[in-house]
């Protein structure tokens, strides 16, 4: 997600991680086209989203994580992020925000969004030790910061 956000900077990047329905396990990373191609807005490309959704439907997968980047603000959902997600979003998904405003430090935070209420949740890094070691990371009281040199 961070690499995708860096690659698309200064535009916002967006995408999702799919997983088997009902497990909540993020298994398949799918970078999406930002149809808005904007530094301040993102929207899944309608045609690509339909293709991805069809694959997920056929595989009995669901969206576990939906992410997007902010390119010059905090990794925190904006008012329109929360409004759109509440009105017509992905209610079971973790909304992950990545900020690329700092060229050296990418901050990654995760939220649940429902009824215009934003609730932050902790991120736990798991997997092979070498996968984790490729990042330096440190926890602050309310966020997880990845140092992606």
């Amino acid at each position, binding site marked *: 997600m961070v690499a995708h956000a860096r690659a698309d900077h200064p535009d916002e990047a967006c995408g999702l991680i799919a997983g088997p329905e009902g497990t909540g396990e993020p298994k398949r990373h799918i970078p*999406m086209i930002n149809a808005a191609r904007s530094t301040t*807005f993102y*929207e899944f490309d*309608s045609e690509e989203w339909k293709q991805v959704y069809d694959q997920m439907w056929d595989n009995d997968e*669901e969206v576990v994580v939906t992410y997007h980047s902010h390119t010059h603000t905090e990794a925190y959902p*904006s008012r329109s992020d929360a409004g759109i997600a509440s009105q*017509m979003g992905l209610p079971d998904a973790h909304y992950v925000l990545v900020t690329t405003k700092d060229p050296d430090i990418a901050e990654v935070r995760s939220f649940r969004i429902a009824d215009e209420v934003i609730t932050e949740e902790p991120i736990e890094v798991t997997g092979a030790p070498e996968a984790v070691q490729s990042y330096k990371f440190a926890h602050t009281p309310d966020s997880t910061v990845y140092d992606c040199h």
Partner: protein
Amino acid sequence: MSIEVRIPTILRTHTGGQKLVTGEGDTLAKLFDSLDAQHTGLKGRVVTDEGALHRFVNVYINDEDVRFIGGLEAPLADGDQVTILPAVAGGM
């Protein structure tokens, strides 16, 4: 004429949790009227009071985004499949 409609998670509160429902109609507008009769409130989440599609919902007939094929007046044929998806968007 029966049309299968794939319902996104956020709208399954209107369908008793069902992800796939069926409706009738030879246009998308008529299909949503038919769906709303069985699944109260569903139409209002997709179609505005003025009779247009909500900005952040995508509706497809087969693989076509209906915004490019006539919107709610887009014609339906027996066996067509309709998919409703959240647009997934935001901005700072």
